[in-house]
């Protein structure tokens, strides 16, 4: 079995690869942009970091947009989106003056309000950076063994809001907004946080992904 991490030039792929290798020493983990290797893999990770316009642009430039859409419509191949890789699955993002995304899940990506104050009158910082509690909204095999309210590591300024409640797997409340930080549909699960940097909880989620058979 091979797990392919799609390398379209955006993001720190090595941390993800190392974390997956750590939880599944018997799987082959490859970082690749080769369409045949990605298609042949039994599971796929779609990472993403930086500005969403650049991520969508690089996916297009490396001629992987069509392939990713094909993978998304394959309801038997597990795909994990991480960070901007989660945001890209939505219809559109308001970042960079508005960017059309992959449209796999209806919903949008908006920015946290950086003028919001917390209950002690302190300014809430954007990027939302650090460890926050993720509340599980629906049961899902990827939550197996992880209590609701567990903390994961985040670093982002934009967040997903899914239109369909059935797609919202987990959320946080920050700066006056409810962010759907975990979304899922069929064989796709996507998270805004970084499981590869979220200590034991993150490793558990990755281990669940590796054994998930949707």
């Amino acid at each position, binding site marked *: 079995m091979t797990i392919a991490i799609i390398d379209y030039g955006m993001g720190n792929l090595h941390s993800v690869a190392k974390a997956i290798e750590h939880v599944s020493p018997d799987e082959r983990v490859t970082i690749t942009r080769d369409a045949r290797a990605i298609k042949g893999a039994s599971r796929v990770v779609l990472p993403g970091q*930086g500005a969403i316009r650049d991520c969508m642009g690089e996916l297009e430039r490396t001629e992987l947009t069509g392939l990713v859409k094909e993978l998304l419509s394959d309801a038997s191949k597990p795909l994990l989106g991480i960070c901007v890789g989660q945001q890209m699955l939505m219809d559109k993002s308001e970042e960079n003056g508005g960017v059309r995304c992959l449209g796999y899940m209806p919903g949008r990506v908006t920015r946290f309000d950086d003028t919001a104050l917390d209950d002690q009158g302190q300014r809430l910082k954007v990027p939302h*950076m650090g460890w926050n509690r993720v509340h599980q909204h629906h049961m899902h095999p990827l939550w197996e063994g992880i209590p609701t309210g567990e903390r994961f590591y985040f670093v982002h300024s934009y967040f997903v809001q899914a239109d369909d409640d059935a797609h919202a797997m987990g959320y946080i409340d920050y700066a006056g907004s409810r962010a759907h930080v975990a979304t899922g549909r069929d064989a796709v699960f996507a998270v805004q946080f970084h499981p590869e940097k979220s200590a034991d909880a993150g490793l558990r989620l990755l281990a669940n992904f590796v054994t998930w058979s949707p």
Partner: protein
Amino acid sequence: MTLAKRIIPCLDVDRGRVVKGVNFLGIRDAGDPVEVARRYNEQNADEITFLDITASHEARGTTLDMVSRIAGEVFIPLTVGGGIRSCDNIRALLNAGADKVSINTAAVTDPDFVYEASQRFGSQCIVVAIDAKRVSEGGEPPRWEIFTHGGRRPTGLDAVEWSRKMVDYGAGELLVTSMDRDGTREGFDLGVTRAISDAVSVPVIASGGVGSLDHLVAGVKEGGADAVLAASIFHFGEYTIEQAKQYMAAQGIEMRL
């Protein structure tokens, strides 16, 4: 409010080895950054920062090797600072497994470098180190200036204005170190921490001068810091990170326990 305040232990490394003696109980090789990082991870550290003090340019490959070994075993965010001058330096560190880099002197000599780096790699991985020293007299309104070369060289830059500028240029986080307090164990300079935290929208890490757990509490409550960085109180085993977190939580601060 559920976002936790962070505790970040900081390690000085030279040629891939931890220096300035880490000395806590039961550690076999206190100079091995992998073992020290693993121990801090077990103590529930929220992130780890490495300050690379390797003087020779040629020996910097050892840092990359070190980061790569740590990133294969410790799955929390890693920041590397010290001597970062080019996008090539940054790319090499990120590829080795660092999550953020901290830019210090190069930001002062060439602010456009911060802009270029944040455009290229995203603000989320660009930390700008603000080394500030108080320059106002007792009766005057407080004013802090940016210093380089370990606090020896003044730049004439106002620390609060400079912080705003660095955020405009794309810094995703600021590491604010008081050069007056660094190494004194008298506590953070809460004035500069608060002034900068109030002036910018991005997270601020307080650094320099921690000697007790109350200093960590004050950094958050009075300084308005989002994270606190300390070295010696953890390295010498005075307190574990877990103890510090419990103490801060007992003072009403949201922590990841």
